[in-house]
């Protein structure tokens, strides 16, 4: 092996390790890990199971909200919510049928929502505006219509 190859490979290895360290630090120390909630539900009894028997938004603290939401072809329930700017919103999600995606354009909210599994993701909305929420996993003929909005006032 030539010296320059050794340097190149050391740098390559180092780069991968730095990636690992940063990712690990963010995941475990800063709690910025990807949505990975591990709670299950009977996908055929979503409507009868708490909290999904009452989907909607609930204020749970100063500037803090909880949104219980079901995803089904081809809609979100509730299909619009409103929060004041600066609110921290906890989303609790599940699917009543096929695999869906929960993405809010121009934010880092992005989570897979699977039937049988409860998914959770939290976001603080600092900027006022009308945010577009869309399903980003192909779910059928009307997939392109599956969207809702979050108004941040």
């Amino acid at each position, binding site marked *: *092996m*030539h010296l320059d*190859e050794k340097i*190149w*490979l050391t740098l*390559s290895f180092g780069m*991968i390790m730095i*990636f690992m360290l*940063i*990712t*690990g630090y*963010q*995941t*475990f120390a800063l709690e910025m*890990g*990807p949505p*990975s*909630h*591990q*709670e*299950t*539900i*009977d*996908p*055929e009894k979503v409507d009868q199971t708490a909290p999904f028997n009452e989907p909607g938004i609930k204020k749970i603290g100063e500037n803090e909200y909880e949104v219980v939401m079901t995803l089904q*072809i081809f809609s979100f329930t509730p299909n619009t919510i409103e929060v004041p700017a600066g609110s921290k919103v906890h989303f609790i999600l599940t699917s009543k*049928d*096929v*695999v869906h*995606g929960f*993405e*809010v*354009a*121009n934010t*880092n909210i*992005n*989570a*897979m*929502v*699977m*039937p*049988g*599994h*409860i*998914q959770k993701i939290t976001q603080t909305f600092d900027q006022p505006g*009308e*945010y*577009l929420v*869309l*399903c*980003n*996993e*192909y*779910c*059928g*003929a009307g*997939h*392109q219509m599956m*969207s809702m*909005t979050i108004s941040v006032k």
Partner: protein
Amino acid sequence: METVITSKEKVTVFNKANQVLGIHLEDARITKSYLLVAFIALLLGGFLGLLQGLNRAGVLELPVWLNYYQILTAHGLLLVVVLSAFFTIGYFYAGLSHTLGGLLPKVRKMAWIGFWMKMFGFVLVVIPILMNEASVMYTFYPPMAAHPMFYFGLVFIVLGVWILAAGAFVNVSHWRKNHKGQHLPILAFFATGVFVLLVGATAFVAVEVLFMIIPWSLGWVDTINVMVARTLFWAFGHTAVNIWYLTAVSAWYVIVPKIIGGTRFNDYLTRVVVIALVIMNITGGFHHQIIDPGISLPIKFMHVFMSLAIGFPSLMTAYAMFRVFERTGRRKGGKGALGWLKKLPWGDVRFLSPFIAMAAFAPAGAGGIVQSTNQLNQVVHNTMWIVGHFHLTLGMTVVMTFFGISYWLVPFVSKRVLTPQMNRIGVIQTIIWTMGMVIMATSMHIVGLLGSPRRTSYTTYGEHVAAQAWDPYMIMIGIGATFLLIAVIIQVYAIFNMMFFAPKGETEFPIAEVEAGEFPTPYLTERWGIWVITMLIVVAMAYVLPLTDMIVNAPPGSPPFKTW
């Protein structure tokens, strides 16, 4: 005793005939058939790609009887499964025939059985897609359920792949028996790695389809475990595309150095790269599930490492390629820091196309490293960014290498030659394709960062401002797709011309020699048993824990849905 001698004599005569006359006619017919299917799939898949591009640009409304999701399912399968698999098999079978002294008669038979099984499987897959009974995409995630015929088709395709892999192993082990202590010729070594991976990857999807989806889609069982199905799919789904990449890499190490008039990179390190890519590949698929529920953060973190690890052999390859280019360019009189670049044969499509393919892997690989880390994955998951990423990796890195190969492989198996005119057409084709892909993939990456979802037909989301910001990029995607279809048509014309109409003659199968005075490669590299076992251990480390968790802590399963 006598018979033994005669058969041995026959082998030598046959070998000599092979070296003098080029490829055995019957072996050539196998490769030609595979390549023809591959490029017809390119034509159809490319055409469907243009329809999608124009639809998303908002200039084409698709009829009810041929909707966007049908087209997208067919586009994905034709290009990711048919074009790549048929090209890979045709290319490696020609390589095995050439470097191992011809295919064995029984291997030839296996190649044909595999061919017809795959074709039969594809017919079974295509019928329900055309009838809009299987608009489930390349990933067919349960609980979406296609017509059972779709899944039976997949089974036949996998069986076909296994027969072809078995054929390759039979031929390789026959050669090794007759060449004890020798290293497998390098192209056959790559082929072995590719077929080992093909078996390893398809085993997962076979379990998913045979034991989970088929009983469920036939109604024998009521529900399915969606997480397990999805996890098994990605152990296959990502490995498949990496196999096409490894096929392209084989041409970079073995073929391209010969075309530029040089020698190939260090034989030992080349084999180490192949072994590394084989061992670490299957576990890479898990990063498709970084934002899934039901998988713990430590498991996801371990998989970030498993995905990133594949980057290392790719970075070794990047070094190797430029080292070979520089060495060759300098020997041809290139001076100064970059003078050697001028000595490379830029006007030769057999070099130009794979070179651009390699160059494209720089941004493509960097994008891959970025998006397999936890938080950055969350930003781009299921957006158009991903579509841009795999159009760089597959549409440029892999396919442009395949195009470059076709300009000598097709004349080689057809006993014809590449004329200067056809070379010029190839260069033009390469330039148009590059322009199309650069425009399209760049726009896809940007619009993905702006939130535009993948696998979604034209939509304005009720004239939402966020969606309006995507429009200019969508138009660029349509323009890129138009360039690409023009390039596809030229490429398919070139294939037919070189196969049936080009002037007769002998074309060389370009395999570069090792550099003189290189240290001999340790024989350890040939111990495939060790590498396969290591691969299985790595796979077990990656999958046993999460799969057990998904099965033991499974929610009640899901019934089938047809949502299209």
